[in-house]
């Protein structure tokens, strides 16, 4: 039960962070990515702020532990290989992110606004996720089989 409450609180903090930092504003995202134009570096500060908190927490508090506080194992992957699947996935994601300025976190945090655009984006994203799973399991026609992926 506590695990669910912690997840709920983390979700609230995450959503609030997305909204307060303006990651939910695609115009702002595009302005950050528009390096050669009228560049707005604000979103680099979002990542900076997040890393300024998470990096010391991870290296000083989490890394030395064998288990999380509730006794569960840590769920990061032991995979360290930089393979073609990882890089092509990142490139495809980058193309979509640059196209509309939405990534999964901000889209989720924006659902409550009731915008049709967000709704269309999320439905398309869910379809993309399902297609990727089919692809990774070798179930899409026309594309060859790939080995299964794992968590970050």
């Amino acid at each position, binding site marked *: 039960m506590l695990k*669910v409450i912690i997840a709920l609180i*983390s979700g609230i903090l*995450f959503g609030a962070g997305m909204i307060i930092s303006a990651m939910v504003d695609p115009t702002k995202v595009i302005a950050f990515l528009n390096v050669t134009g009228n560049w707005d570096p604000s979103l680099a500060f979002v990542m900076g*702020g997040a890393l300024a908190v998470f990096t010391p927490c991870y290296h000083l508090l989490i890394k030395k532990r064998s288990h999380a506080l509730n006794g569960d194992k840590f769920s990061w992957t032991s995979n360290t290989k930089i393979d073609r699947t990882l890089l092509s996935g990142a490139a495809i*994601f980058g193309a979509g992110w640059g196209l509309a300025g939405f990534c999964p976190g901000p889209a989720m945090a924006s659902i409550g606004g009731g915008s049709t655009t967000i709704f269309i*984006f*999320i439905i398309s994203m869910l379809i993309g996720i399902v297609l990727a799973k089919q692809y990774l399991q070798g179930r899409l026609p026309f594309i060859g089989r790939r080995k299964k992926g794992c968590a970050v």
Partner: protein
Amino acid sequence: MENFTPWSALAGGALLGLSASLLMLFSGKVAGISGIIGGLLAPQKGEFTWRLAFAVGMVGSLFLLKPFSIDLPDLVSQPSVYIILAGLLVGFGTRLGNGCTSGHGIIGLGRFSKRSIAATSVFMIVAALVVLLRQQFGVL
């Protein structure tokens, strides 16, 4: 640079870092949003409820911020075909690449993971290239 907002960006970013630290320290989970959404679509035993709670919290945060006059921005309208294409690419790419701006860009980078450093560099560069093509050369 007229819309430069470093302080709210830092404050919001710090909340993201706090969220990721809390979730990992307490229950060992990665606050990667694409992974959480993907996990909701393909439920595994013991991994569904916390993901649902996280998603509910994310969606609910807006309603907790509204009393403080913090709201979502007005969206500039874009053709639906771009939104659909973008959604498909984001969904497909994040599952193939095992993460997005949160999982790779915050948790992975914070852990100094080589995979995440590579993935973050690639999606940043490709996204900037797409914006360059659209804004500077009017392609797409």
